[in-house]
């Protein structure tokens, strides 16, 4: 599904975002000012930050739906200018077309990517990806007949079905209840591990970020927001949602993220964040002293930043 040559160290990163700036009002204070980060092939990045800091703007620029006022985003050596079938997008609302069945919604995307494919080939591709998200039983239903979680699964299947080089997810599970969210997170994690998909995902959920991401981009508050810090997720690659919180690194990473969001992010607005975000690994610091698993800590709480 992906190119098999592993990215050798000297190679340029798969995605480079350099000095990305966006202002909606000409001459006004920019929403984003000098966003810098990099993403390697096969990496899963989550971007976390307060509402209104411009996360969705970054995603829209990467998707090609909005153009930046300054700076560039380069994916596999080519500057991103306009939408491309190389990048699949999962929208915040599922954005399924309600007059089409699940099958036809996904077929619409598949036909867009490969207009020359025969019907049988399209059907095969559609059914493969519907099966991947476990919705084969509902393939001929209209979106209105599906639950919120199922709709979002179809949205994910549609984005994967065009086999994009990079997947962009705009807070895809925000509208789902906690149980459904957990199940789909597991599913997404499995699929991404199987396919080695490069993912850029917006989330408000710190635990979601720790579970899914290899790299967590922390955004300072707006205006003039930046990626202030890149937190490397040093937990084992095959971490599971059910057991993740027993890992000693978990609280270290989580506390680091929460501290950033609660206290540090607001001091870094107006472009006070460093231009080149430092890479930090708070999880590694935790492994050296091996602390007792703090019994008093309420663990499975989902912290959501409004």
């Amino acid at each position: 599904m992906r190119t098999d040559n592993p990215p050798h160290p000297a190679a340029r990163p798969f995605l480079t975002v350099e000095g990305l700036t966006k202002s909606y009002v000409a001459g006004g204070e920019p929403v984003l000012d000098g966003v810098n980060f990099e993403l390697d092939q096969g990496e899963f990045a989550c971007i976390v930050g307060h509402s209104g800091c411009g996360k969705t703007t970054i995603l829209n620029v990467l998707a090609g739906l909005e153009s930046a006022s300054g700076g560039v985003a380069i994916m596999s050596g080519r500057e991103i200018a306009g939408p491309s079938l190389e990048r699949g997008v999962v929208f915040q609302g599922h954005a399924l077309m309600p007059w089409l069945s699940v099958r036809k919604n996904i077929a619409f995307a598949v036909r867009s990517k490969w207009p020359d494919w025969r019907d049988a080939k399209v059907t095969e591709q559609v059914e493969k990806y519907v099966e991947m998200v476990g919705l084969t039983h509902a393939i001929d239903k209209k979106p209105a007949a599906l639950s919120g979680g199922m709709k979002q699964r179809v949205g994910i299947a549609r984005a994967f079905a065009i086999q994009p080089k990079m997947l962009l997810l705009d807070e895809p599970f925000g509208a789902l209840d906690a149980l459904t969210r957990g199940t789909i997170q597991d599913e997404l994690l499995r699929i991404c591990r199987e396919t080695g998909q490069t993912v850029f995902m917006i989330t408000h959920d710190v635990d979601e970020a720790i579970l899914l991401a290899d790299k967590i981009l922390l955004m300072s508050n707006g205006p003039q927001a930046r990626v202030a810090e890149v937190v490397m997720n040093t937990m084992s690659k095959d971490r599971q949602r059910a057991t993740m919180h027993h890992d000693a690194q978990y609280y270290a990473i989580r506390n680091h993220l929460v501290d950033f969001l609660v206290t540090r992010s607001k001091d870094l607005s107006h472009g006070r964040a460093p231009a080149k975000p430092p890479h930090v690994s708070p999880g590694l610091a935790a492994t050296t002293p091996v602390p007792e698993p703090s019994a008093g800590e309420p663990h499975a709480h989902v912290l959501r930043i409004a």
Partner: protein
Amino acid sequence: MNHPISLRLRSAILSAAILVVIIAIWHVSTLPTKSSAAALTREQMEYAKLMGKDPQADSAPSAKSSFPTVADMGSVIAKGLAAPFYDNGPNDKGIGLQVAYSLGRVALGFGFAVAFAIPIGFVIGMSPLAYRALDPFIQVLKPISPLAWMPIALYTIKDSSISGIFVIFICSIWPMLTNTAFGVAGVRREWLNVARTLQVRPMRKAIEVILPAAAPTILTGMRISMGIAWLVIVAAEMLVGGTGIGYFVWNEWNNLSLANVIFAILIIGLVGMALDLLFAKAQKVVTYAD
């Protein structure tokens, strides 16, 4: 529910009862009046004598109501429906044939209006520039009674039948045009973004995304247009003459055959209802639950 009878059945019974009451009132009010000679003034008697009638005679023909009775109506309907498609020259055609002429004109005028209004509506809906540029024209032309176009149509086209079609065309355009523009402009951003990220070509986007998304609104416009077209065709045919259900009404008025006029009115109502139901069905097909 405590009621053993369904709402549907109860409403049907009530409807039938109302119909019976209407017919009963009609029957009673058209009963033969005992118009005795005493009711006539001296001048009227004089006039009757002058016309060769005997006002004193008991079997005076004026005893019968001049408005058709329920029985008259029944026989006219039976006769009309028995041979709806006969053609005995320009002034004597079956009602079915006349309705067919009218429906043909409506179909043509409406068809042209669809072919014109939906593409233009698309352009207006997608382009704010086109919207602003065309809006003044639409606002001025929309409130004009379609029949006001008739003289210009007759003068320029010089054919009464095509003029009728033109009038249908001009009156059908506006609801379809405005509704199409409204529907197209209101297509959800997220569906358009899906199409954009999938690099869907403009023509495919128009047909596979915007058209189905706006279809319920467009069909509402078409339904309104069809209602107006059916209203207008009757009036247009009264003016233009020749053929059609509107001309039939006018012709039967000139024949002083009120029973036939009433019969035609009923047919106009039923056909209009059938057309509306047709569009309601079509609306149901394209409506999507979200």
